[in-house]
């Protein structure tokens, strides 16, 4: 068992780091498919990427239930690190979680296991944070939707391969739906629920 003594530290400068990370996530959401960099460094448990850790320290608090996939929940210090630095409750039921951290996206559960929000409160949906292999090389994906002038091309190696097929439920569900943030190291790309895949390269 990991003791508190072995936990990595959080942000060195809480306020400025959280603000700058928030800005990166907001820009990523506003410009779907664009790669945003997360500058501030934080202590990171081994199973988590730097971007994931920074997002966790910025957006998670005691009001945001977190669901961890089997890889991250098996990592000994991730749950304790989240608890210590964010005091966010880690829940076993993914359908009530505000955020789902996925370290092994290949085995992502079916999307209907997560919260879609309600028609009155579409914001009460689960935001998926997927740690992927690459956001710079891989098959080209052409995206369209609000925030994109024409089409945006994302060259990413994304697991699961059928992520965008699964996300097509967002079309029928709108305004409910699932937002996704792809993380690789310190780079993030957001795929909000309004973004559609138009062509696969």
């Amino acid at each position, binding site marked *: 068992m990991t003791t*508190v*003594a072995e*936990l990595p*530290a959080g*942000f*060195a*400068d*809480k306020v400025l780091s959280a603000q700058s990370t928030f800005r990166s996530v907001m820009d990523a959401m506003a410009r779907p498919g664009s790669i945003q960099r997360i500058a501030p460094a934080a202590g990171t448990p081994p199973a988590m990427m730097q971007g994931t850790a920074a997002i966790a320290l910025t957006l998670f608090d005691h009001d945001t239930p977190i669901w961890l996939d089997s890889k991250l929940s098996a990592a000994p210090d991730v749950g304790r690190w989240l608890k210590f*630095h964010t005091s966010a409750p880690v829940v076993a039921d993914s359908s009530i979680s505000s955020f789902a951290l996925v370290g092994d996206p290949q085995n992502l559960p079916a999307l209907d296991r997560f919260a879609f929000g309600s028609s009155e409160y579409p914001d009460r949906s689960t935001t998926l944070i997927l740690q992927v292999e690459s956001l710079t090389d891989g098959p080209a994906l052409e995206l369209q939707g609000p925030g994109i002038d024409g089409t945006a091309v994302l060259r990413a190696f994304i697991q699961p391969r059928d992520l965008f097929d699964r996300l097509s439920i967002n079309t029928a569900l709108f305004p409910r739906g699932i937002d996704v943030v792809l993380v690789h190291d310190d780079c993030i790309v957001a795929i909000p629920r309004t973004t559609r895949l138009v062509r696969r390269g």
Partner: protein
Amino acid sequence: MAGSETLADEGGAQARRKAAMAVLAHSATAEITGHLAELALPAHENLREPENGLVMVRGRVGGDGAPFNLGEATVSRAAVRLSSGEVGFGYTLGRDHEKARLIALCDAMVQSAELSGAIEAKVVAPLRAALIEQRNRKAAETAATRVDFYTLVRGEG
């Protein structure tokens, strides 16, 4: 029995930390800094950067009244980890980041086997003496103004 000994030992360590915390939380930042300057500080890092927050202070009317929320008070907290692994926590009323950090550092040093003696002798003991002295002086000052009231019983009695 070894089991109960370790338990008692842990209880003793907790009691030492509690006693140190009670002194440090009531001491001024400058005094803690001054006493700490006499020691060679071990290498350490901030596990949790000092931060401010609010706690709800609860009260009771009398000893058996229903609890009610009196109001919120600002607190600062910090966590410091020594390079040898001990983690100290500091909580104090007010918005003094540095004080919370110093308390956390002292708490970590109280837990360390080789530093606990020094910190007790050089920091906690003098601060405790000053605190007791200050309390006694205040009590004496107050006692000097004491007036004994008595009521004359009149009438039927």
